[in-house]
């Protein structure tokens, strides 16, 4: 059901709340103590919590608002929950970050930018119009450019930010060109209308392919798929750890949400039975999913192989996140609802394990002042609990039971086998085995090697508690994953399209 503009406002309450709190958080810099980090942080947290309440209210809603610009459906709802959880966790992490203390006067801006990025991500997950897509993508991008260069005293952060801007500008330029081509071909910017135009046919095949590839470049940059990934390691290494963690989850998930929606609404033949098998007449003889399959293979293989040589843990996690984008793309290649729900499940796992890993990296950087994998030597003896936590997260990232990462991978492979993409599944599992080596390398340093110093370094109660909150679901959801599976299955419904 389409809604009038006035009615539509009711459906973007979470986004509105977040926007209000964006301003409020910014305003905290004029009231209260200037150097305090707590006031803006709590303000931002409050914003997330209130927005969260409204998001929870929207559960099960399936509406198209603002004349088809924006969809509020179970699919975007799923991602909104992920963004909210990620945002809240990142704010909590940020409160403990030492790196950020260097920029103590600018906390208000920092937290408000986290909110603005989240707003952008919300819109990305729901955008059903090419223009809306582009605008929300830019909102996320611009927020992340500033965030990644936030500690501007550090030279590598400046470098990161600049690289990010240049790559970002270039890819969004490509994307915009692709959008304009699509508009020129079909006269439509709405994805649904676009779908119908394509169904009628009579459109130049080669041009539309070029347009799709150009748009894919913009999206590929957001999800850091090879060959659009070159910014990722530098930005992830240069940006403050909290920002890196945030980008690696929220920005990437938003990119994937948009990718999935763009292709599923725009290019799948809704009339075909089963829906999943549908590919347009116009693409006959050319399986455009093969492009995605190739991207996926390249992404995970290059991500994993390059990660093998990394000595800086942030850089390693950057390459690992590239590899994970590759795994997630595998689910997309199937184009089936099964594959989509597997992707969604993987995001839950990815949120838990990746944020957990970055959290530990931040804690270690705080107390041991290092990001070097060599310096993790003997961490298992000096800070046993932190090392244990990191081990859990790393095994989850590898996908070994009893961690939730295993279930995530399991369903991705299941989707591939289901649709007979056996070769891709084999590439995927071999990549998992490769990835074990570098994840295990960290565990090896922590446990198999003796530290040069043996003094114990412990962390306070709050830190341990937060860590436990991340460990427990990582294991518990493996032992009982049906709620997540049910949620993911029900969330692949997009407005009007099952």
């Amino acid at each position, binding site marked *: 059901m389409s809604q009038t503009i006035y009615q539509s406002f009711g459906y973007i309450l979470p986004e509105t709340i977040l926007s209000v709190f964006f301003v409020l958080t910014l305003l905290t810099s004029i009231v209260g103590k200037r150097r305090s980090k707590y006031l803006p942080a709590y303000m931002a947290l409050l914003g997330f919590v209130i927005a969260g309440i409204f998001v929870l209210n929207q559960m099960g809603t399936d509406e198209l608002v603002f004349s088809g610009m924006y969809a509020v459906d179970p699919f975007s709802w799923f991602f909104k929950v992920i963004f909210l959880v990620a945002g809240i966790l990142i704010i909590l992490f940020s409160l403990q970050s030492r790196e950020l203390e260097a920029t103590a006067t600018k906390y208000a801006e920092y937290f408000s930018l986290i909110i603005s990025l989240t707003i952008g991500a919300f819109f990305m997950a729901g955008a059903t119009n090419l223009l809306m897509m582009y605008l929300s993508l830019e909102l996320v991008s611009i927020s992340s450019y500033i965030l990644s260069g936030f500690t501007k005293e550090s030279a590598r952060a400046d470098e990161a930010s600049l690289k990010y801007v240049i790559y970002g500008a270039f890819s969004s330029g490509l994307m915009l060109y692709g959008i304009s081509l699509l508009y020129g071909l079909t006269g439509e910017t709405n994805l649904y209308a676009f779908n119908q135009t394509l169904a009628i046919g009579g459109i130049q095949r080669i041009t539309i392919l070029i347009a799709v590839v150009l748009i894919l470049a913009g999206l590929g940059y957001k999800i850091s798929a090879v060959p659009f990934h070159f910014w990722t390691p530098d930005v992830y290494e240069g940006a403050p750890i909290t920002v890196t963690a945030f980008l690696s989850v929220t920005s990437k998930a938003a990119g994937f949400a948009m990718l999935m929606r763009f292709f599923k609404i725009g290019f799948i033949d809704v009339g075909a039975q*089963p829906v*999943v098998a549908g590919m347009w007449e116009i693409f006959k003889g050319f399986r455009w999913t093969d492009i995605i399959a190739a991207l996926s293979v390249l992404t995970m293989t290059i991500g994993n192989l390059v990660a093998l040589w990394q000595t800086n843990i942030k850089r390693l996690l950057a390459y690992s996140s590239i590899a994970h984008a590759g795994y997630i793309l595998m689910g997309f290649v199937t184009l*089936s*609802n*099964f594959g989509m*729900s597997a992707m969604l499940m993987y995001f839950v796992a990815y949120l838990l394990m990746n944020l957990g890993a970055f959290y530990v990296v931040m804690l270690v950087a705080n107390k041991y002042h290092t990001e070097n994998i060599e310096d993790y030597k003997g961490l298992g*003896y000096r800070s046993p609990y932190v090392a244990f936590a990191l081990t859990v997260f790393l*095994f989850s990232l590898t996908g*070994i*039971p*009893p961690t939730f990462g*295993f279930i995530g991978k*399991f369903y991705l*492979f*299941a989707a591939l*086998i*289901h649709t*007979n993409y*056996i070769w891709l*599944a*084999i590439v995927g*599992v*071999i990549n*998992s*085995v490769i990835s*074990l*080596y570098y994840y*295990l390398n960290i*565990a*090896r340093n922590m*446990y*198999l090697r003796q530290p040069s110093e043996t003094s114990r370094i412990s962390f306070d109660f709050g830190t341990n508690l937060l860590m436990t909150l991340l460990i427990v679901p990582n294991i518990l959801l493996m032992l*009982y*994953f*049906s709620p997540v*599976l*049910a949620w993911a*299955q*029900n969330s692949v419904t997009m407005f009007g399209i*099952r």
Partner: protein
Amino acid sequence: MQYQFLGIGFLTWITFLPILGMVVVLLIPRGNANAMKWIALGATILQLVFAVLIWINFNPSLSGINDPSGFQFIEKTRWIDLQGVGWFGHVVVDYFLGIDGLSLPMVILTAIISFVGVIASWNINKAQKGYFALYLLLDTGMMGVFVALDMFLFYVFWEIMLLPMYFLIGIWGGPRREYAAIKFFLYTLLGSVLILLVMLGLYFSVSVKDPTTGQMMHTFNLLDFMNPKNFDPHSLLGGLGTYWRDVAFIALFIGFAIKVPVFPFHTWLPDAHVEAPTAISVILAGVLLKMGTYGFLRISFPIFPDAMLKFAFPLAVLGFINIVYGALCAMAQTDFKKMIAYSSISHMGVVLLGIAALNTQGVAGGVLQMFNHGIVTAMLFLVVGVIYDRAHTRDMSAFGGLATQMPIYTGVMTVAFFAAIGLPGLSEFVSELLSYLGAFQSFQWVAIFSSIGIVLTAGYMLLALQRVFLGQLPDKWKGLPDVTGRELVAFVPLMAIVILLGIFPSILLHPMNASLNHLVEFVQKAGSGLMAAK
């Protein structure tokens, strides 16, 4: 469900007792190493008690394998039950445990070896808490593999074992432990993921009627995989003797072969066994290797009988290569532990040869050999552990004449060595005899060539015996003390089993007979009959 204790089934107890022990160990404050050892020992003794109870209550006339009513001590509850949306179908994973004559020996073996392993771990003096916690986790993983009848559950147990093993080798191992640990992990994970893919293939190819709703649903139930009628005709693994079924069989084979290990997937074994601490070598050789051959018998053979018949001959040849190659490598070693590691490869080849024969003698011999080799190798590694603890070297040429210095030790070692050689009256004689007998019927020439292995084994074992125990005792070993009481606690039960099974093998052959007969019959019939129909 009459076999319960405190309302929980025997198999759950035997599987999760170690986890319970692990939790207790983790709660003990650091420094109380003795308490941790005793908890670990207590957990494994209780596990042994349950194993004995299961053995006593086991009904040897029931067959099992692919017959749900033939399994005993069954526990079955829904673990994951999701009535999904239409296109997704009903997702079910069962918590399904049960044993038959094939798993019974393995369950007993695991319980014995785990117990012996704790005693052998008594001297661990570094980070005991972590050690015993991981050890007990490993124990649960091993036991779980042998009692799980749901493939998802099987896979989870199979993988859970890897983590503790990595750390146990990597932290408490010898000088090249890092390399050995990562090599072990990478090899086995590569094998596991292949098993995972086959499991998924089977999942989507098989559908059964949901007993509650009457709808068709996919399942991970191993017994359902074994019924060819359950395969959807147009699914990936449907039909018989198809290309994809062969591929799946080979993928499964590689997955399990890495664990056995079958040549050419064996290179992780010498490294892992040599670098691991004594107790872990005992576990590796005693139990972990058997998982591979158990996987063949439990999963590969009955689910892919068509492919099995097709590949029986190559399997037997690989068995032959294992036997001879392992023995030749063992002969060339001067490192005591490495020699025994290679002898494991050789002896597991006998198992492979026996089961590839696919007749009652061969399969029974193979399974018995799995058990016997577990016990004998455990003894051999303990023997090495004893001497290494005292002399801190494993170079056989550095020893000599220990027979006069350590008479009890020499006695123990002689029993272990002669058992490994296959001397009549000791356990391995029976199992090797049966394996070769079976193989001779199916693959005459392979069996004949393989029997070279018996001579080679006698060669390297006697050579080692001579180098270490006979001749002149070097002066520097004059002070070596004989085996202690604690070490004897580990040796005596193993020795008793070796002798008992040598004289009276039917106590173990009898309970497994019905199951293995059924397995052979089923695989032969399903494989050949349906192949003919095709």
